[in-house]
């Protein structure tokens, strides 16, 4: 997030898109609702009428995968009506002209057809966001898990630049992180192209710095992303795959393909339970859960916060850092850490954004990076004086239809997500009876009209099939979704949504799979 979580309460308008906040980030959802009670205006753009859509000033029930068209149309309206922040554009941005030219073609009338919404609603949404003194954009995987996920984000960033909604309290472009430490994992360079602190593996002086810090020669070749690793494993190019705390057999697209890949490689899985993925492993290493070790998690607002050991791990299970350290030594790299704080000290030395953060400083309250020195208070809001790169760069992006659109054989568009009462692949939440009582099994949301057409009643078993496979699940008839759109939460291994999703269409920049759009057909089971 460019801004801090509690700042949603300071926004005059929130543009929420691709995030079902009250179910997936409930505590932020509550804060958005607090803001609404105090008069904050809300625009929601989502293929489903989520809870927050009910309280929205404008709800745009867009077709899955049409976000860029919507953002461009909102920009079209803003420029057409002269609502842009001219001073901000002149002083703090570049490439505006080209973007303005591109969005000329995105009239609300044209885009309304693409998105399946009313052109007047696009105009109202644009005005509310542009006229707000403080406008905040909040988004999640509904924006990113597309063939053009990165461009979706760029189009939101364009909106913020156009209206000067950056660098001030209550504004910003704010992705909500879906997992406790996805921010920390990215910060630490658990990515194939960057070292800790987003320092590129291809940059000679960076490589040199890490070679010196670690005392070894390092590769300058960008590594593979998860979909590429799975592809490599399937084709015999990846011989050993080491998976720590992930369950791709449920979380990744196209389960049949993932299973084939995992079975073809020497697979090590380090986890707290025997997950669907661990069941396929050659070696399973028992790890400690978060309450059984010390360390830090970094939240959505870049705040580095402590976790502390409360109980002992079961049996001979060990903390992940201990396992990794012991394996490093076994492989001939001699390095001992007595506790996570010693690892953190090493992190500070090589990660400029973390240089000023110490365990002592975050003992009571976490600090938001960047924090370059020990007397720096941390950074609540990014891009304040100026944008990180100097000036804010408009990135004109065109709408292009999703990789897999509905056709005659697979006439419906399926989209996926999470529900309040489960979490990701249920490794943790599946162990709580109350949650299983609240959300016991997989289901597919079907619009009443479609259900009638197909002769399906609420609660009946149905077969959902895509080009990858088919699942059996339960019909939930609801007008939350549109007539041609169905939704399946991906938590359950039985009736798993990801048997159907498409792993072959990837975003060209980030290689994120197009999980939010896939063509399916539904039939009633006898």
């Amino acid at each position, binding site marked *: 997030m460019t801004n801090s979580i509690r700042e949603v309460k300071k926004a005059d308008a929130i543009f929420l898109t691709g995030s079902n906040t009250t179910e997936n980030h409930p505590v932020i959802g509550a804060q958005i609702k607090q803001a609404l009670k105090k008069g904050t205006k809300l625009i929601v753009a989502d293929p489903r009428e989520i809870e927050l859509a009910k309280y929205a000033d404008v709800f745009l029930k867009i077709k899955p995968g049409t976000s860029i068209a919507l953002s461009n149309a909102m920009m079209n309206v803003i420029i057409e009506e002269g609502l842009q922040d001219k001073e901000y554009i002149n002083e703090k941005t570049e490439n505006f002209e080209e973007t303005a030219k591109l969005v000329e073609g995105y009239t609300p009338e044209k885009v309304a057809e693409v998105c399946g919404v009313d052109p007047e609603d696009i105009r109202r949404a644009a005005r509310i966001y542009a006229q707000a003194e403080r406008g905040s954009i909040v988004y999640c995987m509904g924006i990113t898990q597309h063939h053009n996920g990165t461009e979706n984000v760029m189009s939101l960033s364009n909106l913020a630049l156009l209206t000067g909604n950056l660098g001030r309290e209550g504004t910003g472009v704010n992705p909500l992180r879906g997992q406790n430490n996805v921010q920390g994992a990215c910060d630490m360079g658990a990515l194939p192209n960057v070292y800790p602190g987003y320092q590129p593996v291809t940059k000679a002086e960076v490589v040199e710095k890490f070679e010196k810090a670690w005392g070894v020669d390092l590769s300058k070749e960008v590594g593979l992303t998860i979909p590429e690793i799975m592809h490599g494993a399937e084709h015999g190019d990846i011989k050993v795959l080491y998976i720590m705390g992930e369950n791709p057999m449920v979380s990744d697209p196209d389960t049949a393909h993932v299973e084939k890949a995992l079975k073809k490689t020497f697979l090590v899985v380090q986890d707290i339970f025997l997950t669907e993925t661990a069941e396929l492993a050659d070696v399973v290493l028992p790890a400690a859960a978060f309450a059984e070790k010390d360390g830090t998690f970094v*939240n959505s607002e870049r705040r580095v916060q402590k976790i502390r050991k409360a109980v002992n791990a079961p049996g001979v299970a060990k903390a992940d850092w201990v396992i990794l350290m012991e394996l490093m030594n076994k492989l001939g790299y001699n390095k001992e850490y007595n506790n996570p704080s010693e*690892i953190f000290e090493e992190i500070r030395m090589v990660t400029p954004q973390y240089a000023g953060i110490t365990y002592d400083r975050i003992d009571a309250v976490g600090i938001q990076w960047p924090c370059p020195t020990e007397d720096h208070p941390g950074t609540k809001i990014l891009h304040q004086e100026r944008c990180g790169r100097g000036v804010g760069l408009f990135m004109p992006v065109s709408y292009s239809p999703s990789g897999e659109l509905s056709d005659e054989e697979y006439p419906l568009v399926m989209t996926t997500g999470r529900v309040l009462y489960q979490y990701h692949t249920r490794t943790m939440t599946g*162990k709580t009876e109350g949650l299983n009582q609240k959300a016991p099994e997989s289901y597919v949301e079907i619009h009443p009209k479609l259900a009638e057409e197909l002769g399906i009643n609420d609660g009946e078993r149905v077969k959902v099939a895509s080009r990858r496979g088919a699942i059996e699940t339960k019909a939930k008839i609801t007008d939350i979704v549109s007539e041609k759109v169905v939704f399946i939460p991906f938590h359950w291994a039985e009736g798993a949504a990801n048997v159907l999703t498409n792993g072959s269409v990837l975003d060209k920049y980030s290689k994120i799979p197009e999980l939010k759009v896939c063509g399916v057909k539904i039939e009633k089971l006898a």
Partner: protein
Amino acid sequence: MITVKINGFEVKVEKDTTILEAANKIGIKIPTFCHDPRLRPHGSCRICTVEVKGGRNLPTACTTPVFEGMEVETESEGVVEARKEILDLLLANHPLDCLTCQQAGRCALQDLCFQYDVKESSYGGAKKEFEIDNSNPFYYSDQNKCILCGKCVYVCSQLQCTDAIGFAERGFPTHIATPFNQGLEESTCVSCGNCVSVCPVGALVPKSKEKFRYWETSPVRTTCSYCGVGCQMDLLVKDNKIVEIQPAMGPSNEGLLCVKGKFAYNFIGHPDRLKAPLIRKNGKLEEGTWEEAYELISSKIAEAKETLGPNSVAGLSSARCTTEENYLLQKLMRAVVGTNNVDHCARL
């Protein structure tokens, strides 16, 4: 700035500060039931009653703003008498089952009765006889113990903004209920448990699988391990087991949690946890030692490096693990194995 005197001590505070806030500033504790700094003050429980010099009655400290030259006594004879009377009235229809009440040890009513030596009520009369609402899987509502402080209602309406519960009926039978008394399970309640966390008595209580007393537990401050909000919370630990979770005032959660953070912790000590390394032998996963596991992994990595080079090895790190562990996994792949084939589930 305004200068006031509390129990003889001077304190300077901003305009519009309440007596309660001013007292807090200099470490003078005024008891409360219904107060929560996150809520609009409503002064319904009256227990924070104090004496203001020259005043005709005893105002509530949580709702009364200070004025220049104000002199306050927080434990004067009159104040103590009034508090005793309030406690006496509360006890008149409160079940005195502290021996078995789960809330014992963190019950504000119990603590204040102890502080002011109120052993029992001097009033006879009717007792509340509500049925316990047991319908929610995570907590129950025992309205016989409710002191009507209203904190649960206001946390639900002002902070959680779910508006699932409210005051039902008037006078003696007033109680906290869902609309039309249809029960928690049939209401709009999202089981966040934020009402349970603020209940000062044993009226809204988590359904605990463990028998414990609060004084047997010790809190461990940590960060929630579910989504990326980074809620701060205290794990209450007894005998190497987590028995309950309480929200903490973290910067991103401000004392709130969701159903998963508050109630979904029993995976931690679950019997299905992996307890020893498993190694596939003859197609089956069998228990082995750490040394065996490390030996096998390192030989496979060496073999892969030798035949196809370091890029034939890949590591998937985890958004669920700590920052330090993510650092070590990428270091293992880069510095030890020699490949940049490291990624994690940020995309999924």
